[in-house]
């Protein structure tokens, strides 16, 4: 079963008694994701200074294995010992993680795109606790050695694929690791950058001979130089040994062939690479591009690109990520409008967005597959196909036929009901291809369709493309960075930095450069195009770089809390925030706008209440009463009512809030001393308003009685036996703004900071940079507090703006202690941001994070904190919720300082409780936050 070559190698791969202390030792490691087994009983070891290549297509467990070795993935079964530490133990893991460097899969996935090259490296250096001098020296040295020193101030997001990988390497090397783990480092970069990358790795290894290296790659040819190669398939080791041993054992000439030979299931030999000649097709060329230019701001992504693709041709597009391939393809599909130039598809110009008939007609003839997975992860494989069939308006029977055929053709039958987010990349790519071909288009535009697809599936896919091209006359425009695929195209074009360097049949291009292989030819083309200054030092001999100074970073125990590492996170977060001025301005302007609207808008001084009278008496006495109402500033009179039906109608429509009814014969009865009864009808829809009206109405009625007594008897009504003198404390003027503004401050200071931190962590999870937290020797609390600090800063800035608004514009009195308020605000925003962190540990999506903070925070803050109604009157669950949330205590502080003129001496219990909330949230977030993946 396992053609394991005998370990004749000087670096034995099986753990043996002679091996003193292997750098890596895995024993019986298995790993599953739900029902899927990713790794099954893997044992291997690597001596210090050795190199190990993991080969195999995507989805076979390479990344899982690397994650386990790096300590970022939780060990389920078996033991993993790295640099003498058992990685199952958190303390050992933390101690050793400072000696491991891990570079995850995906171009620059763990980099921060808005940070510059130097800032990215600086962040990693800080994370490992290096001093300023060390950092400066390391950054210069590494950027020089990798040849990206010229771009040190460019944001990482704007680097080409190759440069991103070099930067990621710098970041990984900044702490002089003893073990370097690279997960598919060259996937998606151009041939020249690839060659440069491996040369760089060789030089680094020459400088640090003690460093061990583990690399996973899907491109078997890259693994040839490693001491040990382990071929993986479906979570099992197929073979191990040197490249030669494996080739000898399988009787093959290349690793690629050896791998295919190793697979347990017999695989049909790949079709002969020679293409049958293309039949000429009449009609206009399938694609014509003339001088296409696309600029984003001052960045030219595509620079005067022209080419022609004949109908039925297979046209290859080669180049690194970020060279403009994707942008060109998008312009041809109409997704992007070119800045200059013109594109024609099947003779008609491409209209951007194509929401007219012509554009849609073109879309029906074109199948497009984008580079990143862009189907719905929430729908099953079959549902995705069905939905696209419907959108392309396939007739029901054709839809059924096509979906069945594609499931069969792309070997997706087994996963028809599985959701794509659970499937390996290779399977997802097959699904995307199936979707692109669903409506049997005349042209396929495929953006790197086979990246991550294993060699066997790739061969079958190309058979299909041949068939479509030669027998179906389908034009195929395909981009790739794989050399094997380029040779299969009718013609190829080499693109670099937005420009097309060469176009022609593969053989012609090779001959033109006089190169032995197409790859070599391309490297020459690229070298000719490169400005000579760029990457100069990359080709220098290794001694050019200063000798490695040896270990400089903290590699010992991690310690309880390192302010330095915490500051590394805080500084980076602040830089990212600073680079997003839109977010920052929303964060500062939003609260100001809200304070303005609420301060003016929320008021309890109700006036101009609309009322109408139904005067059935129309006497002098009734008019005297009604005059009391019409002269009141609180009431606004609506036209008199004609009867009770009118009263009903007006009140139902909400046009009047109060109706007063004077009965017939009121004046007569009054004079006769029969004590007639006046009636007031309130609109009870809004009880608060109704209560207020009742109060005003009763006051008006009292006024009427006094006036009546004066006119009838000549002297005032008898004084009541007791007077109740009301003293409105704290807000003598009874101004709503004074009462409500502190509450608005309380509300704003929790909603916005909490949402910002909640999103902060979830976003890192979605985008992948959370890996840095997993991989680095940092404590959870350092990460959490570091994450929080910039947002506390923003919140305190917001406090300053809001206070200026409250005191300056609204003239809210400020009688209490400023220290009490500022200390309270600091504690409160710290609690708010910490609460956001707690939320972020249990929500998965950014939508849920926004929603959870909005809904969870809004109710206790607005309803149960005492902002609108006194907290003392709360009952039941509301009382518990109100007291279990920080808002109520800051509300106490804010009203205490603003309205009641209190200082810290009186308010400090609230501060203590707020501090308690901060501590509780920190503990909760630390417990809930995972330091590893599953």
């Amino acid at each position, binding site marked *: 079963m396992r053609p394991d070559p005998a370990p004749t190698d000087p670096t034995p791969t099986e753990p043996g008694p002679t091996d003193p202390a292997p750098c890596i030792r895995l024993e019986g490691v298995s790993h599953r994701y739900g029902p899927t087994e990713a790794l099954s009983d893997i044992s291997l070891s690597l001596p210090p200074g050795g190199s190990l290549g993991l080969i195999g297509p995507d989805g076979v467990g390479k990344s899982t294995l690397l994650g386990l070795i790096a300590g970022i993935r939780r060990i389920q079964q078996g033991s993993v010992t790295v640099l003498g530490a058992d990685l199952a133990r958190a303390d050992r893991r933390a101690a050793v993680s400072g000696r491991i460097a891990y570079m995850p899969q995906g171009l620059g996935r763990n980099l921060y795109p808005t940070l510059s090259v130097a800032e990215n490296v600086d962040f990693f250096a800080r994370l490992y606790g290096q001093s300023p001098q060390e950092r400066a020296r390391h950054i210069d040295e590494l950027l020089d050695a990798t040849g990206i020193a010229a771009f040190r101030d460019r944001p990482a997001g704007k680097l080409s694929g190759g440069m991103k990988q070099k930067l990621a390497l710098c970041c990984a090397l900044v702490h002089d690791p003893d073990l370097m783990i690279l997960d598919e480092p060259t996937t998606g970069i151009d041939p020249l950058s690839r060659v440069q990358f491996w040369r760089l790795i060789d030089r680094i290894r020459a400088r640090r001979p003690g460093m061990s290296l583990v690399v996973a790659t899907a491109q078997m040819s890259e693994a040839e130089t490693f001491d040990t190669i382990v071929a993986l398939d479906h979570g099992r080791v197929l073979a191990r040994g040197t490249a030669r041993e494996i080739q000898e054992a399988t009787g093959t000439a290349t690793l690629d062939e050896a791998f295919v030979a190793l697979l347990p299931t017999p695989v049909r030999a790949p079709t002969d690479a020679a293409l049958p000649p293309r039949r000429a097709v009449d009609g206009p060329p399938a694609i014509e591009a003339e001088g296409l230019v696309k600029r984003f701001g001052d960045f030219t992504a595509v620079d005067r690109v022209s080419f022609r693709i004949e109908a039925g041709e297979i046209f290859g597009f080669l180049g690194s990520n970020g060279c403009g391939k994707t*942008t060109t393809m998008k312009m041809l599909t109409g*997704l*992007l409008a070119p800045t200059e130039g013109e594109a024609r598809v099947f003779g008609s110009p491409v209209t951007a*967005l194509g*929401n007219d008939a012509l554009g*849609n007609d073109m879309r029906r003839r074109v199948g497009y597959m*984008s580079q*990143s997975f862009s189907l719905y992860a929430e729908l099953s494989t079959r549902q995705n196909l069905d939905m696209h069939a419907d959108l392309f*308006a396939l007739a029901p029977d054709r839809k059924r036929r096509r979906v069945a055929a594609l499931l069969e053709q792309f070997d997706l039958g087994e996963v028809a009901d599985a959701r794509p987010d659970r499937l390996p990349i290779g399977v997802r790519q097959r699904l995307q291809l199936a979707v692109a071909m669903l409506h049997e288009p005349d042209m396929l535009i495929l953006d790197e369709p086979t990246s991550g697809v294993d060699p066997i599936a790739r061969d079958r896919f190309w058979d299909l493309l041949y068939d479509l091209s030669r027998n179906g006359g389908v034009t195929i425009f395909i981009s790739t960075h794989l050399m094997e695929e380029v040779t299969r195209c009718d013609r190829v074009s080499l693109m670099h930095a937005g420009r097309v360097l060469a176009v022609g049949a593969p053989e012609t291009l090779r001959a033109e450069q006089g190169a032995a292989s197409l790859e070599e030819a391309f490297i020459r083309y690229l070298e000719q195009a490169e400005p000579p200054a760029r990457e100069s030092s990359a080709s220098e001999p290794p001694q050019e770089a200063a000798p490695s100074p040896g270990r400089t970073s903290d590699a010992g125990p991690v310690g309880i809390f390192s302010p330095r590492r915490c500051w590394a996170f805080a500084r980076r977060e602040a830089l990212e925030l600073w680079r997003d001025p*839109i*977010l920052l301005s*929303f964060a500062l302007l*939003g609260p100001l706008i*809200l304070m303005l*609207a609420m301060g003016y808008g929320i*008021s*309890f001084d109700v006036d101009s209440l*609309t009322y109408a009278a139904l005067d059935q008496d129309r006497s002098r006495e009734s008019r005297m009463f009604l005059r009391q109402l019409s002269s009141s500033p609180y009431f606004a009179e609506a036209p008199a009512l004609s009867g009770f039906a009118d009263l009903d109608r007006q009140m139902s429509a909400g046009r009047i809030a109060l109706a007063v009814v004077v009965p017939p014969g009121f004046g007569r009865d009054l004079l006769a001393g029969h*004590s007639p009864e*006046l009636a007031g009808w*309130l609109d*009870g*829809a809004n*009880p*608060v*308003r*109704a209560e207020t009206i009742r109060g005003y109405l*009763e006051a008006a*009625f009292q006024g009427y*009685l006094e006036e*009546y007594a004066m006119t009838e008897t000549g002297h005032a009504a008898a004084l*009541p036996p*007791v007077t*109740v003198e*009301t003293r409105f*404390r704290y*807000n003598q003027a*009874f101004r709503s703004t004074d*009462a409500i503004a502190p509450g608005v401050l309380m*509300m704003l200071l929790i909603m*916005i900071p909490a*949402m*910002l931190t909640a999103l902060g962590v979830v976003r890192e999870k979605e985008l992948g940079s959370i890996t840095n937290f997993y991989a680095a020797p940092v404590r959870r609390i350092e990460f959490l507090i570091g994450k929080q600090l910039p947002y506390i800063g923003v919140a305190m800035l917001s406090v300053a703006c809001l206070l200026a608004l409250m005191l300056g514009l609204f003239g809210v009195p400020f009688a209490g202690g400023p220290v009490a308020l500022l200390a309270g605000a600091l504690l409160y925003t710290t609690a708010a941001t910490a609460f956001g962190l707690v939320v972020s540990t249990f929500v998965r*999506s*950014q*939508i*849920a994070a926004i929603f959870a903070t909005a809904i969870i925070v*809004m*109710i206790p803050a607005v*309803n*149960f904190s*005492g902002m*609108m*109604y006194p*907290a*003392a*009157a709360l*009952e039941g*669950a*509301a009382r518990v919720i109100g007291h279990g949330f920080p808002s109520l205590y800051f509300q106490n502080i804010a009203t205490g300082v603003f309205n009641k003129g209190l200082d810290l001496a009186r308010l400090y219990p609230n501060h203590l409780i707020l501090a308690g909330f901060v501590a509780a949230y920190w503990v909760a977030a630390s417990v809930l936050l995972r330091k590893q993946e599953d």
Partner: protein
Amino acid sequence: MTRLLRNTVRLGVKELYSLSRDLVLVGLIAYTFTVAIYTVARGQQTELSNAVVSVVDEDRSVLSQRIRGALLPPHFRPAELIGLDALDRVLDSGRASFALDIPPGLQADVLAGRAPTIQLNVDATAMTLAGNGTRYISSIIQAEVADFLGRAEDQVAAPTTLTVRARFNPNLESSWFTSVMQVINNLTTLAVILSGAAVIREREHGTLEHLLAMPVRPAEIVLAKIWANGLVILLAAILSLTLVVQIGLGVPVAGSLWLFALGAGIYLFAITSLGVMLSTIATTMPQFGLLAIPVFVVLNLLSGATTPLESMPEPLRTVMLASPATHFVAFAQAVLYRDAGIGIVWPEMLTVGGLGGAFFVCALIRFRATIAAAR
């Protein structure tokens, strides 16, 4: 036209699938329309209820005892007797909202007809309670003193009386108001966030671009988001009104739920369009979140669902006429409390629909513009 309809339906169904797969989100929606309604309606009493009155009784007479005893639940918690020196403290700490200072010799002065003065200290930071409570307490004291003097006939002697009754909510119970208004507030919050975030998510995941490379028009994508998210929220709100508000809280809903559902549908069209419009201004999810907060907070707090519209300054009231929430709250109050028919509320429905149409057109124009500008 049929294609527009077909694609819109198809994409909307997809939207429903996506929603149903995010269990945390489904859980939050359920929470929003159940627990969040119930606790607020039960817990937050806007009427005078459980008010805490502290009494400094310097008289210790029969009359002062009677006054203390007259402050009864459910309006008041049993009056707490404190010393004069504690008066400031109980108000400062917010433990009591009112403090009554009964002077020495009150009873004697009353009997002698010297019309003594009782001082009522009110924490005016809680303004609604302060106003209503003052009125209640004053009239209770007056009634108690009159009763003490055996001068109940004082009332009869008045030349005329005023009877005030409230329609639609005879006892002016606040839970009738808060529960329904909370449903509306949560509906607004949800509609803004769900529709807008759905667009941002598609953009961040690259699926939007994929759709646009197919024979699908931007209008179809936007409409699908609107109807799918709107439908979920509408169903949740109607369920909440019947199960939580009517059955759980025992609030009688006077009007037709069908009419309400129709109006809510129109309103949701407007608000989800607004959400999509916001999503075209923000480029990332955090930006969208920060943009959405002021929008839904203003819509909720200044719509008349929290404080009466009459209390807002005139210019702001005019501005808020551009908010569909203002008209929808008026519509909902008319239909649900006052049993108003379509003959009465059609102007509000028309206005909400018109505003919704304007938002929709803006959203669509902006949506196309952002796609064209995107990478």
